[in-house]
């Protein structure tokens, strides 16, 4: 069922960062789309460019970053718009932020300003986007706080961030993001800073809310476990490019890109022998400055083809038999014979 409506389409997104030693192309051409109501996972190591990509959508990267490409978003009133063409300080993009596309962040403890109450900060969102009426907007904020499971919401409304626990703050952050009923939520590692039990609660909360409110979610993480729980489709990112996109089931069953295979291999599995060492991909992620030509994963890849992989850069190509359900960006693993050759990274 191919003709699903997309909420957002990212085409050839590049983000350049100006640093002392030159220009760092941190995001080197990223393509993906998110369908209405679905959760797309964006997975990758720290520094691969996930955050920059997500922030580029809202135009909130720092001043030394420049983005190019296209980000086509289906706005509520104005039809499809390229977000990158909007002035990052202008009224149009501010109208979209918080109202049509919202974002929640990794560390809830520092995401709120310590000077103002939680209630007033959530309220700021409703007053900006929904109504200027103080009473009505407070009602909306309180309702949302209750919906995300903050007990004693009336009392909590007037409390300050430092009086909340981490899990509570993340709920408040979610409340603030969803209070205006956006079409899309960007969740940038929302549970990384929380302990495991709270993590589970927050993830469940997000799933419930999605079912109820119908928004799409771009779920960014480096934790393969949460991806399995939350996402329908997953995009794997390495060194500023997407190297594999598939449905979650496909990805876990048949990872095709050497990097993905390495990632899967490094996750500890229930039932593995106690004495087995965890697999780790050798080498470290290179700096995205003065990269040699060819595939970014070349140095660390077990299946690289000399003369091919270090000369041209591979493009995202469909390998799922034309159904766009599984795409990888690789020369070596295009054909199914790659699967037989599949070296078991742990035992091979």
């Amino acid at each position, binding site marked *: 069922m191919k003709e699903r409506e997309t909420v957002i389409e990212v085409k050839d997104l590049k983000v350049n960062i100006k640093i002392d030693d030159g220009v760092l192309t941190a995001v080197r051409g990223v393509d993906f789309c998110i369908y209405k109501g679905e959760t797309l996972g964006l997975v990758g190591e720290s520094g691969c460019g996930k955050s920059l990509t997500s922030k580029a959508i809202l135009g909130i990267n720092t001043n030394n970053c420049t983005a190019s490409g296209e980000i086509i978003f289906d706005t509520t009133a104005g039809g499809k718009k390229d977000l990158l063409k909007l002035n990052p300080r202008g009224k149009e993009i501010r109208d979209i932020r918080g109202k049509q596309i919202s974002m929640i*962040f990794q*560390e809830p403890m520092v995401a709120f300003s310590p000077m103002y109450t939680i209630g007033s900060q959530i309220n700021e969102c409703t007053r900006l986007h929904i109504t200027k009426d103080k009473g009505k907007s407070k009602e909306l904020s309180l309702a949302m706080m209750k919906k995300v499971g903050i007990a004693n919401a009336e009392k909590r409304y007037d409390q300050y961030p*430092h009086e909340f626990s981490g899990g509570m703050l993340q709920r408040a952050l979610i409340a603030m993001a969803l209070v205006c009923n956006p079409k899309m939520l960007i969740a940038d590692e929302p549970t990384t800073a929380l302990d495991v039990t709270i993590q589970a609660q927050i993830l469940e909360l997000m799933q419930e809310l999605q079912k109820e409110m119908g928004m799409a979610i771009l779920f960014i993480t480096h934790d393969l476990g949460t991806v399995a729980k939350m996402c329908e489709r997953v995009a794997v990112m390495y060194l500023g490019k997407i190297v594999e996109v598939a449905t979650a089931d496909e990805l876990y069953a048949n990872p095709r890109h050497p990097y993905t295979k390495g990632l899967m291999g490094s996750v500890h599995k229930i039932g593995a022998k106690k004495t087995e060492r965890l697999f780790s991909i050798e080498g470290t992620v290179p700096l995205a400055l003065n990269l040699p030509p060819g595939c970014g994963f070349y140095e660390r890849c077990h299946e690289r083809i000399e003369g091919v992989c270090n000369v041209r850069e591979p493009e995202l190509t469909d390998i799922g038999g034309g159904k766009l359900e599984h795409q990888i960006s690789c020369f070596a693993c295009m054909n199914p014979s790659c699967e037989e050759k599949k070296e078991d990274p742990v035992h091979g």
Partner: protein
Amino acid sequence: MWKYISKRLLIAIPTIILISFAIFFIIQLPEGDYISSYISRMTSEGERFTEADIQALRAQYGLDKPWYAQYFVWMVNIVTKGDFGYSFAYSRPVWSVIMDRLPLTIIVSLTIMIFTYAVSIPIGIYSALHQYSVGDYIFTAIGFLGMAIPNFLLAIILMYTSFKWTGDPLIGLFSTDMLQNGIHFYNIGEFLKHMIIPTIVIGTSGTCKVIRTVRAQMLDESVKQYTLTARAKGVSERVITYKYCLRAALNPVVSGLASSLSSIFSGSTISAIVMNLAIQGPVLYDALKVQDMYLAGTILLVQAILIIIGTLISDIVLAALDPRIRLAERGA
């Protein structure tokens, strides 16, 4: 909140007592006392004193007792009678000498403080928002220069410049006919004109410090996570700067209120000597030179108390500004 304030006031009292003790000890450190410097001055003019004379003089002024006894007497008098002692040089009670100049000292200090903050906070914000721009560099350079030139020299240079340009060196705080005909409200213009140089001279180093602090703090705050959250909510840049960043950035500025007052007292002391301003500075200087100890001691004590009051005020403002501090105090 009131508990906090009353607790601080209570602690302030022993602090003040300690301070008065320290001050008195320091004042009487120089060898000899008022009598000895008086005698040496009179002797150089040809007067002669006998041992008995000297003893009598000392007894008359209570200077024959050991210094801790003198301190005790002084303290008791202050607390019970509000009597701050006797000024040998002026032959008047210390309090009347001080009251001659205290109101003016406070007015001048407050004016300079208001000027300092009113000028430096906006400049600091501007510098932070336009980092590395031409304006930023210019302000930074002026700031550095202001801090590097000792204020008494700045005073002289400015007086000289004003003299060359306008023929009026603006010495003192009041023009000559103000002094003759009394001071009235319509003289405020004159007063402010004369305040220009002292304000620049005394206020500059404080201004520069505040500008640098505000600039650094604004830069720090503007990259904090909560600004990102606010931006992602759709809040405009202006609101982010003034509502969020500024409030957090003011924290160290407010903390520095008391030290700013202290530096104003400091700077004004020397500048007043050079510029002949009718405030405390020159009086203190002369009192120290002739060991007019009750006068010198009281001036220092008054300044210290004003600074402690300033500290208290700044702590209160800080608690009002930053809810985390309020909570810490409540819990403490």
